[in-house]
């Protein structure tokens, strides 16, 4: 299957870096200079009307599609971005921006603090989803794009989508929030908190000052394991692992006996190689603090926004249950935003937004066509 996908691949891509002097944070603090990593796919048209901003989830990065020179890792949304795919790069110019506070090329707690010459660690300012979006807006400004055709993303990417809608409604023509929420429920905060506690309980964490020494690898791995449990569903786990045991001979007690244990350990250990524990703390906190409705009814916040919306949820997603997406759709409905809501019948759990390619492609491709060409209705009678 992967070979087939390559045929419609974006091809070789390169991460780019945008630097700007200063960002005013929601805490009123000024922060800078800031670097934001991003990638682009396709061509920006003459009137710059075909640009789509794609936003990643908690552990994602700017590499959404194609492969890097010499590498063979396709981007995290490669199935949806490419020629003839949902985000068709023959028609659209797709930008994927990494987030402020991350560790994938953008400024974050692991970046060097110009004042001290050492990594920021916990001197990095507290940031919100709104700050992440403010930084992205500077990037979009620098590309000379007045109005984005669409802003799309799943999970935390969807939160950024909602933040874009609230902060800069005049800069976007449509939004595609997927498997996301206006604000986190206590359950969602609770899972994040357990992850944070696992990191902070690791002796190597050392109040965030671990750079150059031993990493809080165990803590971060446990945080990631918890994450992975919440991204799957009961049935997708049963299908993937069953109660299958690994065949390794037991050397000591409490090895990873079951497939699922092995998988979680593998995922956890792997994550440590590519992600910074402090970034994990900062970003999960930004998610927990996020409230697109600003404590008001969300439809009141949206009043006057002239955008079209496609809201997608997944039936088996228990981390971001469909009722949360429905609340988004309901607020759109009440604020007069033209919206479509679909709950895709998937068993993949929260991961579905990365995996349910066919359904998402159908919904997104048709929706974008409608927004881009500016007419309401397509097709023929009797269809």
């Amino acid at each position, binding site marked *: 299957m992967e070979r087939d996908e390559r045929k419609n691949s974006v091809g070789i891509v390169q991460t780019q870096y945008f630097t700007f002097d200063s960002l005013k944070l929601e805490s009123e603090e000024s922060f800078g200079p800031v670097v934001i990593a991003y990638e682009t796919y396709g061509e920006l048209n003459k009137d710059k009307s075909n640009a789509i901003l794609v936003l990643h989830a908690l552990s994602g990065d700017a590499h959404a599609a194609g492969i890097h020179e010499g590498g063979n890792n396709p981007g995290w949304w490669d199935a949806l971005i490419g020629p003839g795919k949902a985000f068709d790069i023959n028609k659209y110019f797709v930008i994927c921006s990494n987030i402020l506070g991350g560790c994938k090329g953008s400024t974050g707690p692991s970046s060097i603090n110009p004042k001290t010459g050492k990594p920021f660690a916990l001197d990095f300012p507290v940031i919100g989803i709104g700050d992440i979006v403010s930084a992205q807006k500077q990037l979009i400004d620098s590309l000379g794009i007045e109005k984005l055709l669409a802003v799309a993303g799943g999970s935390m990417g969807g939160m950024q989508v909602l933040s874009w809608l609230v902060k800069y409604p005049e800069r976007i023509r449509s939004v595609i929030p997927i498997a996301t929420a206006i604000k986190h429920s206590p359950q969602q905060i609770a899972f994040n908190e357990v992850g944070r506690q696992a990191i902070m309980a690791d002796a190597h964490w050392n109040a965030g000052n671990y750079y150059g020494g031993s990493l809080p690898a165990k803590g971060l791995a446990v945080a990631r394991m918890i994450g992975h449990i919440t991204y799957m569903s009961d049935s997708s786990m049963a299908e993937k692992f069953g109660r299958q045991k690994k065949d390794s001979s037991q050397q000591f007690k409490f090895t990873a006996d079951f497939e699922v244990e092995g998988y979680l350990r593998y995922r956890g250990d792997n994550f440590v190689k590519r992600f910074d524990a402090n970034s994990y703390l900062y970003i999960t906190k930004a998610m927990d603090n996020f409230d697109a409705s600003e404590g008001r009814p969300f439809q009141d916040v949206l009043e006057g926004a002239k955008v079209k919306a496609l809201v997608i949820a997944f039936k088996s997603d228990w981390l971001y249950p469909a009722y949360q997406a429905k609340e988004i759709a309901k607020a759109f409905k*009440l604020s007069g935003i033209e919206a*479509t809501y*679909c*709950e895709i019948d998937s068993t993949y759990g929260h991961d579905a937004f990365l995996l349910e390619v066919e359904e998402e492609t159908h919904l997104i491709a*048709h929706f974008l066509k*409608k927004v881009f060409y500016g007419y309401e*209705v*397509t*097709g023929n*009678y009797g269809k």
Partner: protein
Amino acid sequence: MVNENIRLDHKMILGLVDPRSTVLDLGCGNGELLYILIKEKNIRGQGIEIDEQAIYKCVAKGLNVFHGDIDTGLAEYRDKSFDYVILNQSLQQVQHVDKVLIDALRAGKKVIVGIPNFAYYVSRLQVFFRGRVPVTPSLPYGWYETPNLHFLSISDFISYCRLKRIKIEKSIYLNERRDIVFLPNLFAQTGIFLISSIIKDPGKNDYTGTFDKSAIDTWREMIYFFTRDYSDLVIDEVVGENWAQGEKFFA
């Protein structure tokens, strides 16, 4: 120009809707009706549909549609959010007809209801001669697979509106090919009604409700009186306790 391929009930509904109005189609299915209304009448439309595959077809047509059921999807709308709320061939499939209709009349200035007529003469003949639940073009399902929860006739709907003080502004009766003027409850397969708000303030001068109720009660009592006496007698004396035998006996 209205396309000739349009389904007759859609064509009739098209005639009821003012140009450039706003429409909420409850149970919009594949979105055919909304699509035609947008094309022909330049309306602003929104659909609600429970079936996921139908949602995909709506999206392919460029329609705005919400995935959800009618029973819960309607309550969220503010009063008079739409010029028209349409329930075409979907009212008989909702759980709480009363609640949905009242909500539809609240959310829409006018409501268009299309129902399959259970009292169509073919249905009646099927029940009478074959002794089977009717299957007709407007009620095309077997008893074991029907999505319909409620079965009603044109007369049922009219008397319901009277009872609930809902104003029927227009009614259209159809069979598969044309509209029916003569004895619609007998000859029409489909009834389409344009209804508007409940007649408010049922003051002392308005006895329609109570009169209807007492009349129905009287009939009910009479029917109960006769059926009860006869059935008791027959079952007790002739059939006894053996139902299986009894069935054979009567067949």
